[in-house]
């Protein structure tokens, strides 16, 4: 009989609620009924597996993955690096991390983005990488610019990099945003403030990491990501696994 090891339940008081009226788009896009709580089955503890056939080595280098030969995007060159762990503190090796971001002027390379800041001909704005055997990942990119958005009349998104992470199970699937230490727009952002607990917000702010800079080349920020952890197999009524 199949007896999967379950994931710890998601802390819904820590995670942002679906309905957060200061982020106006959530008003019509948030379910009104309670979520139905589901204990894990095989459908939740499994998830897609990715390998080195899926990504290329250049995919994590946003400084070069869209630039013309010999050219670079404009902006502050940064290393974004960190680890993907689970709630037990165990590293998650070989898991897919995908990112996307605006360029240094705050403009996305997207046909729906009409902000007046210019497109950078040498910047695509997306990257992806598999974590190594110890759960580490890194990207080279430029620091994105802040940009205005229609919510209240005068809202500006803090500089941020969107991040998508898989883990080993569909139950761990997560999309989040990485912000940068010292940005005064973070505290004023209605999207950031969908997160109720200020301690949880801090978890999305990458500190400057001088130890990881490349001298005379790129400055660094560190961003660790934690996905849901799994029960160990101590009890009779447990589901087996991990």
């Amino acid at each position: 009989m199949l007896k999967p090891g379950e994931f710890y339940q998601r802390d819904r008081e820590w995670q942002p609620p679906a309905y957060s009226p200061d982020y106006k788009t959530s008003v019509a896009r948030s379910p009104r009924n309670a979520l139905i709580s589901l204990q894990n089955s095989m459908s939740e503890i499994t998830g897609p597996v990715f390998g080195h056939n899926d990504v290329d080595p250049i995919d994590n280098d946003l400084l070069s993955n869209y630039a013309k030969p010999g050219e670079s995007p404009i902006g502050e060159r940064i290393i974004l690096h960190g680890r993907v762990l689970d709630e037990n503190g165990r590293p998650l090796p070989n898991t897919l991390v995908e990112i996307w971001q605006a360029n240094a002027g705050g403009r996305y390379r997207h046909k729906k983005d009409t902000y007046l800041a210019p497109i950078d001909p040498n910047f695509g704005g997306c990257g992806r990488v598999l974590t190594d055997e110890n759960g580490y990942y890194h990207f080279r990119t430029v620091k994105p610019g802040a940009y205005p958005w229609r919510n209240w009349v005068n809202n500006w998104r803090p500089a941020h990099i969107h991040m998508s992470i898989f883990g080993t199970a569909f139950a761990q699937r997560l999309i989040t945003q990485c912000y940068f230490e010292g940005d005064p727009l973070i505290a004023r952002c209605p999207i950031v403030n969908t997160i109720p607990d200020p301690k949880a917000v801090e978890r999305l702010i990458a500190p400057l990491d001088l130890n990881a800079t490349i001298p005379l080349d790129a400055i660094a920020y560190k961003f660790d990501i934690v996905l849901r952890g799994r029960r160990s197999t101590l009890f009779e009524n447990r589901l087996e696994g991990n």
Partner: protein
Amino acid sequence: MPQELNYLKETPSQTAGPYVHIGLAPGAAGFDIYRQELGWDIAGPNAKGERIRVEGIVIDGTGSPVKDVLIEAWQANAQGVYAHPEHPGEVEDGFRGWGRVITDFETGEWGFDTVKPGPVPGRSGSMMAPHINLWIVARGINIGLNTRLYFSNEEQANAADPVINLIEWENRRQTLIARRGARGGQAVYRFDIRLQGENETVFFDI
């Protein structure tokens, strides 16, 4: 003071935003960058079983289509095996069981081709009716929404499904059933997702 529990907390979720395509489907954002984008082929060329198409639209609380949604699908193969090391059994070469789909920017319609999954093991020896697990993200969705797509021509299996039966409001169970139709000799299942309001789709905390 007791000892401190040293579990880490899950990273908080944030909306995928309107430009999710740049990261997860750059072709749709309007540019080519990767050798291959991920998630376009769910079943692969060698998968056994019935080839099906799934189509739908995501509708918001005002009744309007959500045109910037991204959906990920996760399913077993026709034998009911997930392509994952913890699931005993084999899948066909090239079968991943995972896909990513975005909407038409004008209409909000989405669709994907796959094979119909088989029944898969549930908890405590039960079996679950064939289903596709879906995860929905978009601008305005603060944390991805999980739901399941079941098949209208699996009435018996659906009636016995332990997850469908968890939903105490029997009228809401229908929101998880994709309706089978046909086009050009191929089975097409229709699955509209209502984020809010009348006939709001059942979403799960998994």
